[in-house]
């Protein structure tokens, strides 16, 4: 196992993917290096993947949006003969800790959602052209795309063989996308998901598992035509050059990570990390040209990337750090100014991408199975986009009044237009709309005070924070809360928090994550899968799994 799983990569370091960009088309080739697994003990045969392969994919999808904004269509294909992708590597799964499996599935799901987000919000369309077998996660990758072409050669198939083969469920939204996105009839979906060998040719089209089934001799022509169709149907800024996503400024210290605008301080004995965000030190740029010139160092983008990396790092590498405390330092006015700048220029491709990126980072926070706490203290800058982080938290505490002998301004929270729809959660609602699901009028009351710094009593009255404490109570209340939180069952907290965070309607995304945490993770833990005689443990040995027949 590597000492630390690093979510940062860049094209020169890719081992598993090749990206070719030409005009408005990008070709993305999956050609997994068998010996390039993240851990020891397995080979990534048949284009199967592990977290390392997906980290590269996530990096590519992100760079396509920021570095290659002219791209309209991305064509996803396999670089191997006779196999498209065999899905997540089974031996990796069988050998991994449960926590790693869960994190792995969560990350791959977020990446698939990012592909769909690129299509939906940036107009970068994904076309998946399958030759060979696309099984499990391989088919789920295809499901994330806008259009699926399957070679009709008697060999190419799509399959979700998890249940018959491994006694688990597809872990990357496969079942939900089959029914909710592809709208496959439920009984056919049932047949499909119990069929280890999968479905090929015209039946795959008839069942709506793929869009086209095309003989090999017409395969390339069909891709070209589909690319043309997707290209014509989407709009991207043509004459645009992207910005370079330069390497993050990041240093790991003992018990801390320092980024340019974010500090992560880890208190291991308290099993807690404090993430302190530094607001912008300058006003927003005057023009979009200036923003583009700042590129990756433009504060909102820089902070989003740093926060994203920190969350992923904590999820994958710090499993015992159960509570994340969010703090901020800076001038609220400048934060709000940046929000206003992005809003005013939302039609500019880069401004739009940055807002969409913040949407994804905030969703990543929502989906992090740690207790999330915001501490809104004097000198903090929880305004607009940063206030959204506080709304993502399970609890938020606000310091009431000034601190004796401290010349910083009293704590304030400022709402901006960004808090009212710029960053929908996976349930499709804003965090405020979700928060006030039972009192929609509170959203309107809050909207009326956009731009006004709100002090602790305002925030309590408006329901924007959980509690406000003055100097006398603050230290004790905060300490007691954090100690109590750390004493609860980690599993219990994970389940409770995931239940409470997503009030309101179900969407494909909430279903995917909800079912992942509930069904998939449960099944993954059960002896029928993970026991010594379970299907996962026995996979590849040729010995059949022994199942406990009792239905639960």
């Amino acid at each position, binding site marked *: 196992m590597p000492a630390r799983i690093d979510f940062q990569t860049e094209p020169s370091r890719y081992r598993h993917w090749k990206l070719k960009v030409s005009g408005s088309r990008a070709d993305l080739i999956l050609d997994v290096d068998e010996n390039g697994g993240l851990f020891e003990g397995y080979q990534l045969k048949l284009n199967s993947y592990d977290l390392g392969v997906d980290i590269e994919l996530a990096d590519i999808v992100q760079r396509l949006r920021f570095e290659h904004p002219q791209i309209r269509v991305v064509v996803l294909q396999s670089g191997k003969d006779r196999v498209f992708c065999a899905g997540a590597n089974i031996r990796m799964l069988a050998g991994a800790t449960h926590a790693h499996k869960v994190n792995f599935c969560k990350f791959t799901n977020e990446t698939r959602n990012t592909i769909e987000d690129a299509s939906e919000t940036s107009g970068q369309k994904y076309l998946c052209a399958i030759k060979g077998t696309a099984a499990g996660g391989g088919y789920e990758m295809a499901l994330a795309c806008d259009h699926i072409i399957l070679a*009709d*050669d*008697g*060999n190419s198939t799509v399959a979700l063989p998890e249940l*018959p083969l491994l006694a688990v469920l597809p872990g990357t939204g496969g079942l939900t996308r089959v029914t909710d996105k592809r709208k496959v009839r439920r009984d056919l979906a049932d047949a499909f998901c119990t*069929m*280890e*060998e999968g479905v090929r040719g015209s039946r795959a089209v008839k069942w709506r598992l793929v869009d086209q089934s095309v*003989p*090999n*001799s017409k395969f390339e022509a069909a891709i070209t035509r589909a690319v043309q169709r997707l290209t014509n149907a989407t709009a991207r800024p043509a004459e645009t050059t992207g910005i370079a996503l330069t390497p993050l400024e990041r240093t790991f210290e003992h018990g801390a990570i320092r980024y340019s605008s974010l500090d992560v301080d880890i208190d291991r004995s308290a099993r807690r990390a404090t993430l302190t965000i530094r607001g912008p030190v300058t006003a927003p740029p005057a023009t979009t040209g200036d923003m583009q010139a700042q590129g990756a160092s433009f504060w909102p983008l820089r902070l989003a990337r740093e926060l994203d990396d920190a969350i992923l790092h904590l999820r994958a590498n710090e499993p015992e750090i159960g509570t994340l405390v969010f703090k901020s330092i800076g001038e609220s006015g400048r934060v709000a100014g940046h929000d206003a700048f992005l809003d005013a220029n939302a039609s500019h491709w880069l401004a739009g991408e940055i807002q969409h990126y913040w949407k994804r980072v905030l969703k990543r926070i929502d989906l992090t199975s740690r207790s999330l706490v915001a501490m809104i203290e004097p000198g903090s800058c929880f305004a607009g986009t940063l206030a959204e982080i506080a709304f993502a938290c399970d609890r938020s505490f606000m310091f009431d009044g000034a601190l004796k002998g401290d010349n910083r301004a009293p704590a304030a929270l400022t709402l901006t237009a960004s808090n009212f729809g710029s960053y929908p959660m996976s349930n499709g609602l804003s965090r405020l709309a979700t928060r006030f699901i039972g009192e929609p009028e509170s959203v309107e009351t809050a909207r009326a005070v956009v731009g006004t710094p709100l002090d602790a009593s305002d925030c309590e009255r408006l329901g924007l924070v959980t509690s406000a404490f003055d100097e006398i109570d603050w230290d004790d209340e905060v300490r007691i809360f954090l100690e109590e939180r750390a004493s609860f069952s980690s599993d219990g907290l994970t389940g409770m928090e995931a239940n409470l965070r997503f009030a309101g309607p179900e969407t494909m995304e909430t279903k995917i994550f909800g079912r992942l945490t509930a069904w998939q993770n449960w099944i993954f833990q059960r002896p029928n899968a993970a026991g010594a005689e379970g299907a996962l443990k026995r*996979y*590849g*040995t*040729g*010995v*059949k799994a022994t199942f406990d027949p009792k239905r639960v």
Partner: protein
Amino acid sequence: MPESAHVDYSTKIPNNVGLQDDQRVLKALEQWHPGYIDWWMTMGPEGFQTSDVYLRTAISIDPKGWAKFDYVKMPEYRWGILLAPRAEDRLVNFGGHKGEKAWQEVPGEYRAMLRRLVVIQGDTEPASVEQQRHLGKTAPSLYDMRNLFQVNVEEGRHLWAMVYLLHKYFGKDGREEAEGLLQRRSGDEDKPRMLGAFNETTPDWLSFFMFTFFTDRDGKMQLESLAQSGFDPLSRTCRFMLTEEAHHMFVGETGVGRVIERTCEAMKQAGIDDPYDIARVRALGVVDLPTLQKKANLHFSLSLDLFGSEVSTNAANFYNSGLKGRFQETRIEDDHALTSATYPVLKLVDGAIKLVEEPALTAINMRLRDDYVKDCQGGVSRWNKVIEKAGIKFELKLPSVTFHRQIGEFKGIHASPEGQLLSDGEWAARKDRWLPSTDDGAFIESLMAPCWEAGRYASWISAPKIGIDSKPGDFEYVKIHRA
């Protein structure tokens, strides 16, 4: 009139499966048969469908019935459904179900796996007919032509055997798969046959002999391991197919043997001792021995690929489920469960070729391939006897299993026939020494002139020691009526 009206399926098809009373199979066969005849007419031996061929037909499984010789027009050949007799109280002899009664019906949980095994085996049968369809017109004798057609009709019957299993035991899916067996085409870009070697061309008679020696021998090994199956109908089917497969390998072994014999004889007559004096040997109108070695290298390596990955989960599942055993499973002395045994597998470890002990269950393919190599070596040694007897210093050798591979451990590397690892550059520079080059192909093609006079043989091949069905040397094995 519908095609099916020409055949009385219940009485005209030789069978020992009670076909006349099996409405389900009869109905399925009625649906399938016109497509089969259509396939045979368009993809079977080209140009000889109206000729009378002296063929052996199996009409029953008893010693009197399984080899009836007579002149037949191939489209009228009586393809039948014949299974080896049922052994009472046969058991599953290996895997997790060892000791249970052999299955007479498909166990539901193994339906998909079994169907896959049957379809893969079934796909190879028509494939080789397609590969060999143009060979008739360059046959080096009527005797060889007849052997070719015998092999072809029997591959057709093997297809029938697999189709019977699909129709009888696999319901609607089975019928669809049986149809698919007629849809795929060897070497077709859009609808290729399932396995690599069955999409290669068989451009000349030397390739045909090599193919029947090496690739039909893979078929033999696969049938041997399926003959062990706990699914009794599959076992019985494969056991009967093996009797026919033996003849195909006979055609290959004696075919190559007769080429060698003729070459050695011509070299002696011309006073050539050096087998590498290729130009002079070729000038005699015979195939030089180094080219034969290259052909063997090619067909051996392509056939090894048919065994799949050395370490295979599928193979382990097939074995443990009792569906596909090892070569001569019941004669092996071990626990036939293999849950703790290991087996040495040749692997590529950090750039070096090494034997590594792997769980025996996952190394089933490797073991079958080892048995195959041994089986091949027997025939190669007999060929070498012919060369030795002629006093020529040359020995045919099976190349290393690492040589020229597309599947398994060694697919990503280049190796010489001796198993030395090579760089891409070295391989490109030297591969024409080990595999038939375009020039070699052109030379062989130049030899492929038809020789259709009864009792006569082309310049490059000897007459057989004895005729088929003990017929005299000038027997007219094929009465050619060209369509």
